Every structure is written in C-alpha cells, then in structure tokens.
C-alpha cells in the first residue's frame, strides 16, 4: 500500500462519522484523538455539518472535505467510535486503521429498507395507543405511517430537496388517514394523523443540535436547530394542506 498520512485516516474517520449523522463536536474530538494517538498532538479540526477542515501543525497544508449528503446511521458512528478507541489504545497501525475505515466507508451496515418501513408501520400504531387513541385506530395509523415513511424515502431519492420530501411524506400520511376513515376503517382522524407523522419527527437533529450547542459549537448547533425547525414546519405544512381540504 502506498504512503498513508495520519491526516488521511483522520479525515476518513471524520467523513464517515459526519455522513452518518454524528454530532460535530464528536467528529472534531475523534479526529484530534486519532491524530494524537499517531504521534501528532497538535492538530486542529473545524467541522460544520457540511464540511471538515483539518490541519496538523508542521505537516503540510490544511485539508478540506465537503459533505454533501448526510443520513442517520448510528451503527456506523458506533463502529468508527470503536475503531477510534482501538487506535487510541494503540491496537491498530496506521495502515490497518485506514484499511478498516476504507472498508467501513463502502460497506452498507444499515438495516434493509423494508425493515425500516415495518418499524415506521409499528411505531405509528404504538403512538396512537400512547396518545390514548382507540385500538380500532391503530391499524389505520400503521398503514398511514408506513406509507408516509416510504413516501419520504422514495421522494427524497427522486427530488434532492429534503424539506419537500418531508412535506410530501406528511401529506401522504394525512391523505391515507383521511381516506381510510372515509371508507370506515378507523374513526378518529386526528389520532391517526398524529400517530402516523411521528416517524417523520427529526429526533436526531433535535438531540444533536442541543448537544452541539452545549459543546460550544454554536454554528453547528444553530444550523441543525434550523434544520429541525424547517423539518417540523414541512411536516406541519403537509398536514395543514390536508386539513384545509
């Protein structure tokens, strides 16, 4: 294998983590720790939700990576975290670490889509019960929620604007709920709609925004908060369109 620099390993680890939806402060922390473990105690990393700038003192110019697409894959974050732990404990050489990260970068560790749809299906139904809805409304909410979540995935693949995909998903869930109640399947439209849009809630963004703000990453925290707000607004608009009809 050709020459691998410490910065390559750090950037690769950072890139995978950021793309998988880790908090920005964790990405910065991990990169600096990896660099320190490989004997470069003076490194600087500046991470925003859309890019990474990384420099090691006395080892060439700073480097930049642009992150275009982010998803939620906590499995990958956990795996990079454990690789970084192994590096910190001195269990991995530079080449080994790079090879492991490279392998992880291209590997798909996410659950199959159908599982995620089933999860959205199940969760929607559970929320109806939790918000003290009737048992007869559980199954309609399941269908509306599962369909809405699937809509989010397919529309997002078609149209890269995330907020439109969320708007459409909420709209789809609402239409399904109203249609199901119209044909006599389920009774309380409100409960069904509330349950079915729950899988679209930006839980990841809310948590990460708060954690980043607490870690002093104001830029990242505010931008994630704005993203969470826009997502909530997109969902609300999708539902408003249904209600106005």
């Amino acid at each position, binding site marked *: 294998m050709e020459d691998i620099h410490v910065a390559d390993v750090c950037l690769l680890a950072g890139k995978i983590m950021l793309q998988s939806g880790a908090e920005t402060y964790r990405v910065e922390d991990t990169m600096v720790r990896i660099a320190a473990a490989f004997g470069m105690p003076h490194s600087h990393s500046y991470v925003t939700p859309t890019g990474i700038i990384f420099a090691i003192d006395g080892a060439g110019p700073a480097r930049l990576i642009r992150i275009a697409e982010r998803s939620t*894959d906590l499995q990958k974050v956990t795996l990079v975290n454990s690789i970084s*732990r192994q590096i910190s404990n001195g269990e991995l050489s530079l080449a080994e670490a790079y090879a492991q990260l490279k392998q992880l970068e291209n590997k798909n560790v*996410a659950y199959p889509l159908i599982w995620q749809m089933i999860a959205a299906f*199940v969760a929607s139904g559970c*929320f109806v019960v939790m918000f003290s809805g009737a048992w007869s409304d559980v199954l309609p909410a399941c269908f509306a929620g599962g369909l809405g979540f699937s809509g989010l995935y397919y529309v997002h693949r078609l149209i890269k604007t995330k907020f439109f995909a969320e708007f459409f998903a909420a709209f789809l869930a609402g239409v399904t709920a109203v249609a199901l109640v119209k044909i006599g399947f389920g009774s309380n439209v409100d409960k069904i709609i509330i349950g079915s849009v729950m899988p679209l809630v930006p839980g*990841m963004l809310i948590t990460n925004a708060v954690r980043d703000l607490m870690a002093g990453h104001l830029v990242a925290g505010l931008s994630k908060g704005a993203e969470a707000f826009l997502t909530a607004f997109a969902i609300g608009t999708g539902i408003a369109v249904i209600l*106005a009809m």
Partner: protein
Amino acid sequence: MDIKQLAMSFIATAAFGLIFNVPKNLLAHCGFVGMIGWFIYLLLVDYGLDSVFATFFAAFVVAVGSQLLARAYKTPMTVFSVSGIIPLVPGGLAYEAMRHVVVNDYNMAIQLAAKAFMLSGAIAMGLVFSEVINQLTKTKGSR
C-alpha cells in the same frame, strides 16, 4: 398507569432505534430508555404536575439513562437518547396548533404553538442538565 402504555412505548422507541440504524444488540436498550422516559412523564402528569415540567424531568431521565448505558457499552450516547426522547415530542399539540391555523383561529393556534414550543424547550433543557451532570462526573477517557 397501565402496562399497555409501557409496552407500546417500549416497542415504539425500539422501532425508532431501527429507523435510526441503532446496532442490533442495543435496540432493546433503546426501547427500555424510551419506556422509562414515558413512564416518568405519565407518572408526573398523573401526579398533577404541569406537562412542561413532566417533559423536562422525563427528558432528563432519558438522557441520564443514555449516558449510563453509553458508558457501560462504550458507544456514543446519542445511540440511546435519540430514540428515547421521541415519545416526549409534542406531536399532538403541534397538530392541534396546525388545525387552528388552517381555520384562521390564530388566538388558539398561538397558544397551542407556544405550549408545543415550551415542551420542545423542556426536552432540550432536560438534555442540557444531564450533559452538565455528565461533565461533572466525567472520568478520564470515557466518552
């Protein structure tokens, strides 16, 4: 308080863990964290506490539980907290607010929206407080 609420919150939170791609062996833990949070919320609301405070305490418990589990399993804390706070999100209130906006009843809509906003803030503050506890008790090398 009944068992069906607890069972449902467990399943719902675990299902959310699956949507967020939480590692397979930790899905049940996610469900447990979410269930505890929802249990605390229901308990406090039943007790007559305002839902903002109830949400705050529940989010706090969820976050502290996540920190403990994260230390035990040497994983990022978000693995557990992300799905754990989902049951506390004021989806119902936001929906009601939207319903009043649509019929131009802005008085009611603003009231409901303000309440939903306060509840979201309570979740955030719960996370913040647990973060402070975490920093106070941090041992060297743990993340």
